[in-house]
């Protein structure tokens, strides 16, 4: 660092009101008081989560935009109920958090070469950016609107292929492919 790069900042000179402190303080306390009234009269308050959910609220009122919301992943199935994924590793390559682990193998089906023997997503490590969805050439991986996933251990939060396919079954009616 050169001396010329150092910028000395002077504290701004206080006005009389600033220096007396009380008027400025009252302004601040007025703001909090306003919020108290707003909250108590129910005009402005946070969403009461378990009872109210963002997906039930219009977007303009701060609700969830379901068109763009990115939640937990699912692995889509094709018409035959088989996993759509072809184990091309595009999602794990695109993933900035390195949370997708795939092990590929030769598929048991005649119409396809490759399929994932193992497909794990670490939902704790994932940053829900949706890059995997973008990268997928066969639309096999998708981000659903589910966000309230819980687990007792870290291991439980690593979703394997079965869990991701189950996620598809759970969400396919609400969110068709």
């Amino acid at each position, binding site marked *: 660092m050169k001396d010329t790069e*150092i910028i000395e900042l002077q504290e701004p000179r206080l006005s009389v009101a600033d220096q007396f402190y009380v008027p400025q*303080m009252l302004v601040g*306390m007025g703001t909090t008081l306003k919020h*108290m009234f707003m*909250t108590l009269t129910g005009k402005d308050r946070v969403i*009461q989560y378990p009872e109210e959910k963002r997906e039930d609220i219009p977007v303009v009122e701060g609700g969830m935009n379901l068109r763009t919301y990115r939640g937990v992943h699912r692995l889509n199935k094709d018409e035959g109920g088989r996993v759509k994924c072809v184990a091309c590793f595009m999602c794990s390559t695109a993933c900035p958090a390195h949370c997708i682990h795939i092990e590929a193998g030769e598929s048991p089906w005649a119409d396809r070469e490759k399929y994932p023997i193992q497909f794990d997503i670490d939902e704790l490590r994932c940053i829900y950016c949706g890059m995997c969805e973008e990268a997928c050439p066969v639309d096999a991986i998708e981000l659903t609107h589910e966000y309230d996933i819980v687990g007792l251990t870290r291991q439980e939060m690593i979703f394997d292929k079965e869990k991701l396919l189950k996620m598809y079954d759970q969400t396919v009616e609400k969110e068709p492919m």
Partner: protein
Amino acid sequence: MDWLSVIPPFVYIALVAFGVVLVTVAYLILLERKVASWTQDRIGPNRVGPWGLLQPLADGLKMFFKEDYRPGGTDKVLFTTAPAAMMLVVIVAMAVIPWGGVHRVETQISVAAGQDVLAAAIASIPMNADLVGEPRVVEAGTYGIMYEYAFQIADLSIGLLFLVAVLSLAVYGVVVGGWASNNKYSFIGGLRATAQMISYEIPLGLCLLTIVVMTGTLDLGQIVEKQAHYWGGVIPAWNVFAQPLAFLMFLTCIHAEANRSPFDLAEAEQELVGGYHTEYTSMRLGLLLLSEYAEMIVTSSVCVALFFGGWHLPGLLGPDAQHPAVTSSWVVVLLRCAVYFIKVLVVIFVFMWVRWSMPRFRFDQLMMLAWRSFIPLSLVVLLATAIALYFAVAQDESFRSLRRIDGYTALLLFGVNIGLLLGAMVLSRVLPPPPLTNRRIGIPGSRFSHTPVPAAGEVEAVVQTKREFLVGVSNQL
């Protein structure tokens, strides 16, 4: 019922007062969380009981059933004594709060012939009650007597002095707890509390003195009573209207005294983990937290007594002298207690409101506020009040006899206060600014400094520069 009348009133007053205060303390924590929520657009605790009303119960249960853990290397005795001492001191301080003013009781006693009536009357009334007037004869051997007692636990004539003495002991809980914890954060918290307490006791005492000069008594009950009239028939004669500047300083000082934000440097959680109670768990921690709220109640009560006329509510109750019967009614006494308590709650709400609006002071700002503004200002206020009163008293006989401030004197004092405030504001603009804190200190050779790196042989010069610099800094401070 005989044995019941034998119990002196201060015993049940104490029981009721402590019961109410301690339950209130528990619920203040709920209120605090609610106020915090409201300012932050939230609803606050609402899971335990209706509107979260059972939350304090759940918190208390939790505190009791937590593991009572004491880390190694702590001072065994002091570590446990500190929270107890803190709570104890606050409870003791509560003794002199004049909750309901004076309660007057009329009763009859039968005196055997030949006995001293007065002595018998005195023997029959409760311990700390005063006989009012002479016993009057109702029929042979039966005298009607009237006695009164202050509706407070201990009716001390030096109540204010006692309060100041006891409240300043509360800091021992913080300091001793911080020291006994054997933790640097706790220790720093304790140190900060000490420095803060020393600084803010002075303006606090001076503000109290201002009121004492005005009222001429140290008895809190009497101070309240002297505010129970009107100026110009309309304005209640509360000291806050005569001494707004003193009130402002007093309010600030009790914030500091109760270690409340923005003066909660002793437990500044962003810097000191938990401050003095970092190492505390279970009910020991519970006591420390409760005592903070108990202290808030005590200091608010004092504030109400000194500046807001205690139990006095305009329009609701007239002064005692004109309506002697009023004071003998239990309903009125309890109503006064309620009024007092509601006023206290309002002040406590202000405490909380401030906490959730203000950021914490930096330590140097805290010190600057006490030493550079409050101490000189409160000294001047005291002096000016004394001078103003001297002239007011010289002209007004009623003041001398009743020791009550009349409307003109109050206006004079109000004028003096506002004048001093304006004077202080002008002076603060005229006086040179205080030395800058937290500024970049130029150390020769540092890459963040403008001072060039010394060549060989210039070391002496650099040392000299450094010394000059340090001397300069200390001069500025």
